């Protein structure tokens, strides 16, 4: 029995020469993947890129214990590749994406289907063939029986929310199975990034998932900095950390309000609706935009705080947090709320593990994963935020983990505003080096964001892969509806609050 092949290792937020990445034959490549997952590694990126007249696969796995990433590559000629999903469920969507993006067949995949209903990655001028694939038109998993009915929701669905299609197999009120079909928001970001960076690149990243502007922009800037061997100054790193945590605060407070709204508990819904705006306005105080557009740029942060602004932010933070506590404690104290939250939409720990669940939803199912602790970059190398965990894996756990994270993010921001490092907030960035591979991991508010960049001989992007945390977590939402009341779907959906556009790109 041969030893598992040695993979290249790197830390998040750094770059290595592509030549240092072992180019393995398929047998060793697949063995490395399966062996890695068996050892407890996570697949954070598994994607492919056209490589002359063949396709090159790239694998990045995370060793959370060692705070290290392992990577290897393989080349596939021909039009098919062997699927590993039956042995390793967490690569399910990655394999379907590879098949769709590179025009390949995933042989042995349990149910190969489109991911985004997009044409394969081709040069910029290609116009998609409208007849090729129609979003939402696939073979949905169906349950047959005289009393079984099928409910289809979306793409346009009630509420101010992005489009997706949800197909329920129901028996009366009970859901046997939910299948989710996305791709409606596909804008072609990854295709457009090839050959960059150019003047639009940062704007693609800021709007990839527009409510996670800071998360994705930070990952992108860490990539650019790694590729050019630049390190932002400490003050810039601290400002980025404050921005990231303010983004988390706004979203978590908004989510708790939305959860309350979905069960008809209006006090918390009303108060949190306002309070979310208070946190967004703090971000706007720093950079003029409530969503942090322009706040994170390669080299650091183009907006800075003086002592007066820092003092004002501290004051507003304290007042907003006191109001949050008053609004949110009502949830846990009200039995009718807890009755709706507890036991609803359970994702057990072993299922969460098999699916590769990340973020607050993963932590609510007992998975102790947080990129700020496991793969710290920027300010998180020096300041640690305790990880919030729960174990019931239900809507209550997903809500309560958010409340814990709100408290810890407030404490972090308060501390940072008091001890902001002196000096400049931004430094100049050199051009990217040629033939490098770089990986960035940032704990966005939905979970771990992963970007992988490969540069060509002139230092331009040969491939830029974006993996929003939603890419991992949509399957868990589908799972959580099994055996649930269909009327609990909005509640479960909100408890995950995944990004459609972050998935569709």
């Amino acid at each position, binding site marked *: 029995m041969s030893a598992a092949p040695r993979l290249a290792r790197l830390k998040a937020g750094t770059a290595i020469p592509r030549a240092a990445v072992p180019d393995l034959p398929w047998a060793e490549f697949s063995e490395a993947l399966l062996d890695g997952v068996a050892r407890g590694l996570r697949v954070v990126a598994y994607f492919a890129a056209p490589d002359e007249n063949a396709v090159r696969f790239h694998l990045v796995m995370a060793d959370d214990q060692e705070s290290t990433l392992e990577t290897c590559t393989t080349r596939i000629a021909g039009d098919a590749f062997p699927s590993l999903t039956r042995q390793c469920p967490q690569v399910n969507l990655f394999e379907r994406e590879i098949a769709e993006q590179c025009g390949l067949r995933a042989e042995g995949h349990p149910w190969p289907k489109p991911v985004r209903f997009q044409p394969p990655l081709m040069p910029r001028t290609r116009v*998609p063939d409208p007849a090729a694939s129609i979003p939402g038109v696939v073979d949905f998993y169906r349950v047959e029986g005289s009393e079984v009915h099928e409910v289809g929701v979306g793409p*346009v669905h009630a509420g*101010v929310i992005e489009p997706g299609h949800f197909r329920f197999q129901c028996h009366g009120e009970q859901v046997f199975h939910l299948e989710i079909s996305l791709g409606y*928001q596909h*804008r072609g970001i990854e295709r457009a990034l090839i050959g960059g960076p150019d003047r639009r690149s940062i704007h693609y990243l800021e709007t990839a998932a527009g409510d996670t502007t800071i998360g994705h922009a930070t990952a992108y800037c860490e990539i650019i900095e790694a590729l050019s061997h630049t390190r932002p100054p400490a003050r810039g790193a601290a400002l980025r950390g404050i921005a990231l945590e303010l983004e988390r605060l706004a979203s978590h407070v908004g989510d708790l309000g939305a959860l309350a709204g979905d069960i008809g508990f209006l006090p918390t819904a009303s108060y949190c609706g*306002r309070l979310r705006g208070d946190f967004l306005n703090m971000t706007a105080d720093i950079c003029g935009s409530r*969503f942090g557009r322009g706040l994170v740029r390669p080299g650091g942060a183009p907006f800075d705080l003086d002592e007066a602004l820092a003092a004002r932010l501290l004051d507003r933070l304290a007042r907003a947090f006191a109001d949050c506590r008053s609004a949110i404690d009502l949830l846990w104290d009200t039995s009718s709320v807890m009755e709706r939250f507890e036991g609803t939409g359970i994702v057990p720990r072993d299922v969460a593990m098999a699916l590769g669940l990340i973020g607050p939803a993963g932590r609510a199912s007992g998975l102790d994963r947080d990129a700020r602790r496991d793969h710290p970059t920027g300010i998180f190398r020096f300041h640690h935020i305790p990880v919030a965990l729960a174990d019931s894996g239900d809507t209550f756990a997903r809500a309560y983990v958010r409340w814990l994270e709100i408290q810890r993010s407030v404490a972090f921001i308060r501390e940072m505003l008091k001890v902001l490092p002196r000096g400049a907030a931004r430094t100049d960035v050199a051009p990217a080096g040629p033939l490098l591979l770089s990986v960035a991991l940032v704990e966005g508010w939905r979970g771990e964001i992963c970007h992988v960049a490969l540069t060509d001989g002139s230092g331009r992007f040969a491939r830029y892969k974006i993996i929003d945390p939603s890419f991992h977590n949509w399957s868990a939402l589908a799972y959580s509806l099994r055996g649930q009341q269909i009327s609990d779907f909005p509640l479960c959906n909100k408890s995950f609050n995944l990004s*459609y556009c972050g998935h569709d790109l």
Partner: protein
Amino acid sequence: MLNLMRARIQQGQRTIRYPAGPPPDLPERFRGHPIIATGRCADGCRECAAACPTGAITLQPALAVDLGKCLFCAECAAACPDGALSFGTDHRLAARGRADLMVTESDTVRLATALEAKTRRLFGRSLKLRQVSAGGCNACESEINVLGTIVWDIGRFGIQIVASPRHADGLIVTGPVTANMRLALQETYAAVAPPKIVIAVGACAISGGPYIDHPEALNGAGAVVPVDLYVPGCPPHPLTILDGLLRLLGRLGTEGERRTHIAGTETAPPV
């Protein structure tokens, strides 16, 4: 019960009086209507146009900014060596016509006029809108959603987001309209009983925004449906969206005003 009442008292009354009172304060660094001072431009300088990610700036016959393409990212202002271009804090940006969004030094945005009298009689005190996100990034969607929360409370004006196009008087569209959402947008529009209106919120819905000329998207809602109100921004501030809605319903502003100066500044910023 007592804790509910205690919380209610602590949280207080938050709804703003605007438009009966002044608009709420915007952050100092807020980027609203651009301020153009071509007298400062060096001969033959094209730095602003070259820096713009969406091609919103044209220089012939005079420096013009297309607010429908503008992301308000201020890369142009950062690139300008002479301080000829900057962004003020005026939030009033919404317009009825696509061409009204072209602003020059002498012509600021032509602010939205009200719907014609007959439609205004129908919608002026009760406007139900169905939101369609056609590739939006969730920022414009969030800012629309926030208008329903207690600070802004568009319910005061009879404006409400409804669950079905069958219940709606019109659509409020975000996103560049991806090819994958073309059919859904068409069908949703068709499902609204006439008379109906369409509001395009954000740079994507007006022109495609960062996704201009992407083969995966259609350069804005106008490719699929007729648009009655354009609200620029990326995303527009809720106050900008609300200003546009109130003008549309005739609750704010006079007919087709252009301002001779931009609120918050008397002159262009000092060198």
